[in-house]
C-alpha cells in the first residue's frame, strides 16, 4: 500500500494496523520485515533547522510511488510492502517517511526496502523547504546517494 499523509505519521500504529488488515498475506509466511523510518533532524548542512515544508505533486507523487513499488516487486519476491510519506509542515523529530517490506527471507527484505528508499529519494516528486533558526527559508538542493554516503 502507498499513502500520502498530511498529519502526524505514527509509524508503529500504521504498521500494526496494516499487519492486521493483511493477515492473509503475512501469517505463517512472514520470516523477515525490514523497516525504514526517516525522521526530520534539527540540523542540515551545518545549519540549525526549525521546521520544513514538504511540497508534492498530487497525482504524480502517488503514480511514481506505485511505479517504485511495482519495480521493486518485479525484482524481488516479496510478501507485501507499505510506503507512507508525510507532506505539509513538519518539525524536528516528525517522521517523514516509512517503508516496510515483508518477505520470506531476510536478504530480500533488506535489499528491497533499501531499493524503495533510494528510488523514492531520486524519482518521486517531493520537495523540502527548510526554515532556519533566523527565520530564513531555503530549498533543499538535492538528495544524496544512500548507497555511498559516509556516516
Amino acid at each position: 500500500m502507498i499513502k500520502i499523509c498530511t498529519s502526524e505519521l505514527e509509524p508503529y500504529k500504521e504498521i500494526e494496523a496494516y499487519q492486521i488488515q493483511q493477515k492473509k498475506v503475512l501469517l505463517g509466511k512472514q520470516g523477515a520485515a525490514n523497516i525504514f523510518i526517516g525522521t526530520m533532524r534539527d540540523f542540515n548542512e551545518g545549519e540549525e533547522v526549525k521546521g520544513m515544508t514538504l511540497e508534492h505533486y498530487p497525482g504524480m507523487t502517488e503514480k511514481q510511488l506505485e511505479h517504485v513499488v511495482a519495480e521493486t516487486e518485479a525484482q524481488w519476491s516479496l510478501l507485501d510492502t507499505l510506503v507512507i510519506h508525510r507532506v505539509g509542515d513538519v518539525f524536528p523529530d516528525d517522521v517523514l517517511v516509512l517503508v516496510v517490506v515483508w518477505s520470506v527471507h531476510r536478504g530480500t527484505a533488506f535489499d528491497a526496502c533499501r531499493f524503495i528508499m533510494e528510488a523514492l529519494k531520486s524519482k518521486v516528486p517531493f520537495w523540502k523547504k527548510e526554515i532556519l533558526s533566523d527565520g530564513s527559508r531555503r530549498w533543499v538542493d538535492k538528495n544524496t546517494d544512500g548507497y555511498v554516503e559516509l556516516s
Partner: protein
Amino acid sequence: MSIKVRYFASLKELIGQAGDDCEFVSGMTVLDVWQALLPEKAMPTNVLAAINMEYVSLDSILKDEDELAFFPPVTGG
C-alpha cells in the same frame, strides 16, 4: 487547444507562478513550451519534466490537452 503547464517548488518561486496555459501547436516539444511561455528565462540545467505525471525528456512531443510539469530535482524521503 491548449497544454496545461505546472511549476513546482523552487521553480514555481523562480517563475513567480504555479502554472500557465500554452496554446497547443501540433508537433511541439516540451522545450518548445518552455520557450513559448518563458522566452526570457533560460531553463535551469537540472529541470525535470513530466507529461501527464510521467517523466519525459525535453524533446518529447506533446498532444493537445496534455498536462506538462516542470520541477527541480526531487528531495523527498
